[in-house]
Every structure is written in C-alpha cells, then in structure tokens.
C-alpha cells in the first residue's frame, strides 16, 4: 500500500472508474461513521496522502459552491464560480474528515434526526467544560477552586455526555485528572484543542496566576 508504484497504479485505477478518484473518495465518505483521517482515506483508496488531501479540498469547496474543478464545470469553464452550495458539507474535525448536513437546514433535518439531538448544557456545565478544556489534564479540585464551587456532579454529567474523560491520576496527589475527548472536538467543529479561542485576551495580566494560585492552595 505504501509502495510508490502501487500508489501510482491506484490512482490510475481510480481514474478509470466513472467519476474518477474524486467519486471514489465520495463513495468512501458515504460509509464512514466517524471522522476519517487523510491517511486512512489514502490507504483505503490506494493513493498518496497528498492526492487525497487535494481531492478532499476540491470536494469541500465544491460542496460549498466555490468550486472551479467539478467535472461538469470543467467543460464550460466560466460557470465555475457560480454554483449553488449543496445541502451538505465536508468538514475536517477532530483530526478527520466527515460529511455533515449544512447548518442552514438544521430545523428541517432535526425533524428527521431526533436522536443524537443534544440538550443544551447548563451555565455551570459550560464553565466547567471551559476550565477543563483550557487546563487539561486537570483534577476536579482544581476546577472547583477556579469556579469557586464543588463541581463533582457537573463533572459526572460531562463524562456521561462523552465530552470529557478520565486521563489517569496525578502522580503527586493521586487525584483523577480529566481531559476533553475527541467527541468534544467534533461537537466544537475543531481539529484539536489548540484551535480553541485564545484565553489570554480574556485574562489581562494574569500570566502568573497559576503559580500564585497553586502556591496558595492547601
């Protein structure tokens, strides 16, 4: 699968099919039920990661109505920029690619997809989730200290919802540490926690607060 020659053959083979490699990639995207990485898709299609990533970006733009490469448009050139967006979009979340219905149609789609609908998180749950997302891995005691209240039941709820998980124990205190899950990334529509909005603009001049704060804990 990783042989360069085999990979070349893979692409040629795909291009011989109706719709080519692009349609083959679409076909695979139809059966995945969790985000698939470009590596997984490349291996499955027997092409290089670079080829898959090009195809993914083409599809992504085409679904959003900005394509210049859709085969139907190739023939007529000038029509390229004016395509209408499709009802779905291809997104790169939690490190993988997946097809989603477009958010404009949420109300309509929601009538068909009752399950999977998630109830809104409470303010307490959101605040707790925010602290865990930015301070992970972090113990309940630490989150509690930042929020000024006991967070045990909120942490349980977030764990049940699959948004956070146990990430082992603190080597010193033995306390359970929590981190966010890839489901959290998926729900947030981001690739990694590094893509979360910056905390610093909200925290003027408080760079040293952690150290200060930890020192004052008993």
């Amino acid at each position, binding site marked *: 699968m990783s042989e360069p020659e085999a990979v070349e053959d893979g692409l040629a083979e795909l291009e011989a099919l109706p719709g080519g490699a692009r349609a083959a990639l679409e076909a695979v995207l*139809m*059966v995945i039920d*969790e985000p698939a990485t470009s590596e997984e898709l490349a291996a499955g299609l027997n092409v290089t990661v670079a080829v898959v990533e090009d195809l993914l970006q083409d599809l992504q733009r085409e679904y959003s109505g900005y394509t210049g490469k859709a085969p139907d448009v190739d023939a007529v050139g000038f029509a390229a920029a004016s395509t209408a967006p499709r009802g*779905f*979009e291809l*997104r790169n979340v939690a490190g993988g690619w*997946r*097809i*989603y*219905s477009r*958010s404009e149609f*949420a109300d309509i789609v*929601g009538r068909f*997809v009752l399950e*999977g*609908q*998630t109830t*809104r*998180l*409470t*303010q*307490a749950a*959101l*605040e707790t*989730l*925010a*602290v865990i*997302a*930015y301070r992970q891995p972090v*113990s*309940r*005691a630490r989150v*509690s200290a*930042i*929020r*000024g*209240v*006991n*967070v*045990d*039941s*909120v942490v*349980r709820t977030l764990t049940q919802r699959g948004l956070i998980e146990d990430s082992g124990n603190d080597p010193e*205190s*033995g*306390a*359970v540490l929590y981190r966010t899950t890839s489901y959290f990334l*998926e*729900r*947030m*529509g981001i690739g990694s926690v590094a893509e979360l*909005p910056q*905390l610093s603009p*909200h*925290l003027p001049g*408080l760079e040293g*607060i952690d150290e*200060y*704060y930890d020192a*004052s804990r008993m």
Partner: protein
Amino acid sequence: MGPSIAPTAEAEAPDAGTSEARKAGFEVRLANFTGPFDLLLGLISKHKLDITEVALATVTDEFIKYIRRLQELGEDWALDEASEFLVIAATLLDLKAARLLPAGEVEDAEDIALLEARDLLFARLLQYKAFKQIAGILGGTLEQEGRRYPRQVALEGHFAALLPELVWRHTPEQFAELAAKALKPKDSAPAEVGLDHLHAPPVSVKEQAEIMGYRLKLGAPLSFQALIADAETTLVVVARFLALLEMFRDRVVAFEQPGPLAELTVRWTGDDAGWDSSSLSEEYESGTEAGRSGDGANE
C-alpha cells in the same frame, strides 16, 4: 450544582421579591448564579464597577445580604457550597473593614496579609471572569455546531457481509460476569467518591484524649510536638489536636505559645481525679468521619 439547573434570564435575582424567591426556593439561587464568583461578578457589573476598583463597601453589603436571604429561605445548603460563599464574604468583610479605617500606610504584617488576600481574591475573580466569557463562547459554538448533523449511517448490507467473522471467546458465564460489571452502579454515593484511599483505621478522639490526659497528669508541661511524637498517622495527629481543643474547653489543659508558629506547650490544669474523657462531645466519636465534609477538597 445540579446539572439540571439551567440559568435563567433573571440576572437581577438578588433584587427579586423575597416572596417570589421563597416560592421557588433553592432553584432561584442556583438558577441565577453558578457560584460565589458568579454572584460577585454579577454585583460588580450591576454597579458598573471595574473589578480592580471595586467599591468594596457596597458590594460586600450586597453579597452578605444575598447570603443572608438564602439562609432565610431555610433551604438546606450544602456545606462545601456554603463555605465557598462564606470564605469570600469573610474576605470581602476584611477588606471593607480595612477600607473603613483612616487612610494610612501599610504598617504591619496584618496589612500586608490583607493586601495579599485582596489581590488573590481579585486574581481569582478575574480568572473566573475569563472562563465565564470563554464558557459563553463554547456554548455559542456548541449550539452553532449542533445545527450540523453528521452522516453516520449503518453500513450497507453488502459491505457488512464482507466483514470477517467475529472472534467470540466468551462463555455465557463470562458474558454474565461482564454484564454484572457493566450494570453495577458507578457512583451511587457521590459524596464518597475519591475517599477509598482513606480507609485508615478509625481513630477515636476520646481514646487520644485519654492517652494525652494520662501523660499530662504526670505533671510536666509537654510540647505539642512531644505529644504527637508517637502518632503513626496524620489522623492520630488530627485526633489529638481535636482532643486538646476539647480538653481546653473543659478547662483541664492550658496552652502557651510565645509567638505565632512558635512551639505550643500544653500544661495540665485540671484536678487529677475530676476529669475523664467521657465528657468529650460525641460528635468526634465517629473517628475518621470527621474529615468527610465534601469530596472536592479531598483530592
């Protein structure tokens, strides 16, 4: 903080009529503020104040008033929750008291401690404020993202048929064991989460009082260090300390300590026969139970 409690639009809850608040009881409080910092921020923004330039007197008064109203509601208030509010109220009161004194320079350690307490409180408050703002952003993003539904359909039949035969090595008995494990309630008693490692033998305060009483009755004053020299565990140290407080209350011991953090000396002052540990209050009798107020702090 129950997860079922949603924030409501009534941001001005502290000003809501008491009768209305009484009617809704516990819910009203939790519904509007997710903690003492939230309350404090609410009060500060209500008065359009900068956190770093808070008019402490006004905010402190309102904070205390709010806590008092909660108490009047007569609802049970979890100890660990209440204590967080009280710690902050106490700090605010200290700061307010310091402000009310004639303006003077920082003079002693107490003033410095007060300044530190103020800075720490404001730092924690600023930090909380940042997370509160971020929480708002997360909430907005989650809601927006929730409007996109992922395609996650079952594998088409002809592909499912391609899957290799499942390796299955479980006997019905093993499977039942697995089910039993999976069905076992995970945290039936949340208050005890994380306390398993505290399975130390119970330590009786009474028993420790008797041991120390016996030693002190020999006549010579003993330092606290000497009294706990043979304590095998921290629990025994704590029990002995609690026992000493009880004995002090019963006026059978006296303490001497030349200065803060200096050595504490304990002297027997009771009559030799007239005291025994049975006068110790029963509340300590459950030994280790004394430490179980809230699990958050025990991690």
